[in-house]
């Protein structure tokens, strides 16, 4: 039996895919929101003068970057409840996994951006009587944040795609929804292609929005 391309199945199932997409977006944004907080804290700890904080951040960053996100997701969803005796709802587990995972990468983005700021800026801040934390807040962080935007955008795209791995813990996100549709209509070619195109539209959109944002914020001279 010859293969016949049936784009109409996509049209029929499109509302379902969109429901999956909604969850993908919610988990991505929620995960990155907490991931940014977590990453900022870990990144600042990594450059702290306190060796204990540096080590602690180092252990977090290395253990997350050194293990697959799939393992992290399954450990959190299946493993941790066995130890703690509480089940974590899949969506919450998904947000936690994305947050903890992206946080480790964002920590390195934050650390790198802060360290790329001329040490003279810290000295100038201190020399007018600001404390170390005031100088960080008013002088270093705003400059570093602008330099974080391109790599953060990159992380946004990576995390968006990584949410598809959460299908293994039963999160009904975009790919999982596609799989459920295929289980009913067996149109793997059309459905997975549609799923892929939806991801692509999202990531291209993010990339475009970021370019606009970068241009909007005054780009600082590199020195």
């Amino acid at each position, binding site marked *: 039996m010859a293969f016949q391309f049936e784009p109409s199945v996509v049209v029929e199932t499109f509302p379902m895919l969109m429901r999956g997409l909604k969850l993908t977006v919610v988990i991505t944004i929620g995960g990155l929101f907490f991931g940014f907080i977590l990453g900022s804290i870990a990144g600042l700890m990594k450059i702290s003068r306190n060796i204990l904080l540096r080590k602690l951040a180092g252990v977090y960053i290395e253990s997350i970057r050194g293990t697959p996100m799939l393992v992290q997701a399954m450990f959190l969803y299946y493993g941790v409840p066995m130890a703690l005796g509480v089940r974590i709802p899949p969506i919450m587990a998904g947000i936690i996994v994305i947050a903890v995972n992206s946080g480790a990468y964002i920590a390195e983005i934050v650390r790198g951006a802060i360290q790329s700021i*001329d040490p*003279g*800026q810290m*000295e*100038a*801040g*201190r*020399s*007018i*009587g*600001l*404390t170390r934390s*005031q100088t960080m807040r*008013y*002088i270093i962080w*705003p*400059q570093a944040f*602008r330099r974080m935007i391109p790599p953060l955008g990159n992380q946004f795209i990576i995390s968006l795609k990584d949410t598809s791995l959460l299908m293994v813990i039963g999160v009904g996100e975009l790919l999982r929804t596609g799989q459920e549709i295929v289980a009913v209509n067996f149109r793997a070619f059309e459905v997975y292609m549609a799923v892929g195109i939806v991801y692509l539209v999202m990531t291209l959109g993010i990339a475009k929005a970021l370019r606009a944002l970068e241009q909007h914020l*005054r780009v*600082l*001279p590199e020195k």
Partner: protein
Amino acid sequence: MIRIENLHKSFGSLEVLKGIDLHVRPGEVVCIIGPSGSGKSTVLRCINRLEEPTAGRIIVDGKDITDPKTNMNLVRAEATMVFQQFNLFPHMTVLHNVTLGPVKVRGLSSAEAEERGRELLAKVGLADKAENYPDQLSGGQKQRVAIARALALQPKVILFDEPTSALDPELVGEVLEVMKQLAREGMTMVVVTHEMGFAKEVADRVIFIDGGRIQEEGPPEAFFSNPENPRLRDFLGKVIAH
């Protein structure tokens, strides 16, 4: 105003300062000259505690800044620094650069700080640049903003670390002019410089540092016209012939 006693500073095994004693009186302009690597900038940076002294005592405005109990942030605001590389805050307007310290450190309201900031920018000849960003200014203008930023804190002394060394030659004059005006108004200044003309004209006292020690000090007339120390003679010979 500033009293330095037996200041030593080592970076690892390299001893940069080998016992500096220096006393700066209120209203005095002290210029520090010397070959590069002699430790002259390190002296300034120790006064501001940007560098931690290895040994010795530094008393700024009656406070022993080598005492760990001293609140360094307030001392820094009293003895603020103007840097060779300006170190303006590039993400803030010129005016904001000047008002940040007064608001955050001195507790002025933003209106008061802005008023003072605009006065000081006018004083350094940059009233019309208040809303510009630092990267829209020339080097000389940047350094004049940096001086206004220091003045905005109403410090007891300003430390200048080679303030004209990063400038194109034609821009040096405008910065020196502002510094001369400050000197005339009685500001206490410690200036590390290579501008011998400035030192000769403005300094109350010139100090020659070489090899981590003060080799010679005195009023500029005697200092430049009749140098006794052979290392100073050698140094001046090189600088002036240049």
